[in-house]
């Protein structure tokens, strides 16, 4: 995303929309919402797994953004600012509902779940080819909330472990560990899903 990005049929750049929104211009607010609504909503939906909550949180994230838009000075990209704000809104909501943002600090030692070790003779199938987006989406929704948060922030949204650690309040090591376990869990869920489908045929 760059400030030179044109909005609304080449009429308005993002930078122009931001400046006009600071003056209370309704069309500029709508243009900025239009540009970012999918990403913000998808983030909220992935992290909560619930469409009603995701819509409420999307509204809340944009509301906070527009309330503070007068303070935006352009030191960081607007999208970075907005998405960070959206993550904070979602995390705050998860904490309010006492949902785990990240599981307790733990290491891989002594944790057998999701490791590659297999029982002798167990089938060793790979997830061949590409993964269907809807299947992956469903599997992400089935992840425990703590794993889901880290997976979405790192693999979907592209945040680094140090940024995630700061946002969710955990160590970098814990963030890495949770990400790894989240991917292992997803692999398990996807494989189960494929096995179920194969069984139905």
């Amino acid at each position, binding site marked *: 995303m760059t400030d030179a990005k044109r909005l609304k049929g080449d009429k308005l750049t993002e930078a122009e929309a931001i400046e006009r929104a600071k*003056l*209370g*211009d*309704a*069309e500029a*607010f*709508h243009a900025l*919402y239009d540009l970012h*609504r*999918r*990403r913000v*909503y*998808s983030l909220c*939906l*992935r992290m909560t797994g619930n469409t009603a909550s*995701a*819509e409420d949180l*999307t*509204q809340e994230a*944009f*509301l906070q953004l*527009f*309330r503070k838009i007068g303070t935006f000075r352009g030191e960081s990209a607007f999208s970075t600012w907005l998405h960070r704000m959206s993550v904070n809104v979602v995390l705050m909501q998860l904490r309010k509902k006492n949902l785990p943002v990240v599981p307790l600090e733990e290491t*891989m030692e002594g944790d057998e779940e999701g*490791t*590659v*070790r*297999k029982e002798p003779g167990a089938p*060793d*199938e*790979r*997830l061949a080819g*590409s*993964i269907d*987006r809807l299947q*992956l*989406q469903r599997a*992400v929704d089935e992840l425990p909330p703590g794993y889901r948060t880290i*997976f*979405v922030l790192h*693999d*979907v*949204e592209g945040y680094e472990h140090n940024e995630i650690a700061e946002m969710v309040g955990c160590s970098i090591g814990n963030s*890495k*560990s949770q990400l*790894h376990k989240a*991917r*292992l869990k*997803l*692999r398990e869920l*996807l494989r189960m899903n494929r096995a179920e489908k194969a069984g139905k045929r």
Partner: protein
Amino acid sequence: MNCVEFERVLLEGEQTPEQQAHLNSCSACSNLLADLQLISNQAKSLLAADEPSPAVWNALESRLRREGIIRPGESAHPSFGDLFWRWRTAWLVPVAAAFVLVGVVRLHHPAPAGDNAPIAKQSVATPPVTAAVSSDDQQLLKTVASRPPAQRARYRANLDDANAFIRDAQDAIRNDPNDAYRQQMLINAYEQKQMLYQLAVDNVSEQ
């Protein structure tokens, strides 16, 4: 390196010669690595994959207006069609405003010098205004013709009410030119009509 050690290194995201050597000899770890990379790559497809319902913007816009963040009187999404309609119908508002102005001017400056029948003159001056109202009313009803029947009926009923008030007040003033109460009623009725015109135009631009 065994499978457990391999996984620990994998967790750290490092690439070591030992890891590569293990991958060459262990199909389970090799498959695992390929799958995890596939999942990680496919995760990007979930970015901006979903669309919020229009209700989100409607609720957001409403809150922005309530909090005064959006400047009052602005429409958030004037499309070309909206702008065209606004242009087509905007003239109704000044016409309605002119009704109020004409009413006020005639009430407060009723009689040129030597005119012994100010109200008679006023009533003589009324027909063109009344005729214009009728024609403008038709335009207003045409503007709201595409609305749901219940909304259309409300516009019609409100318009009829406003016109009835105007007629009653005009009749009363004709009988008693000094009836301040009726004069105020006439102005109120014109203002009510102006508001109806404004609402029709604003709603068209927001559709």
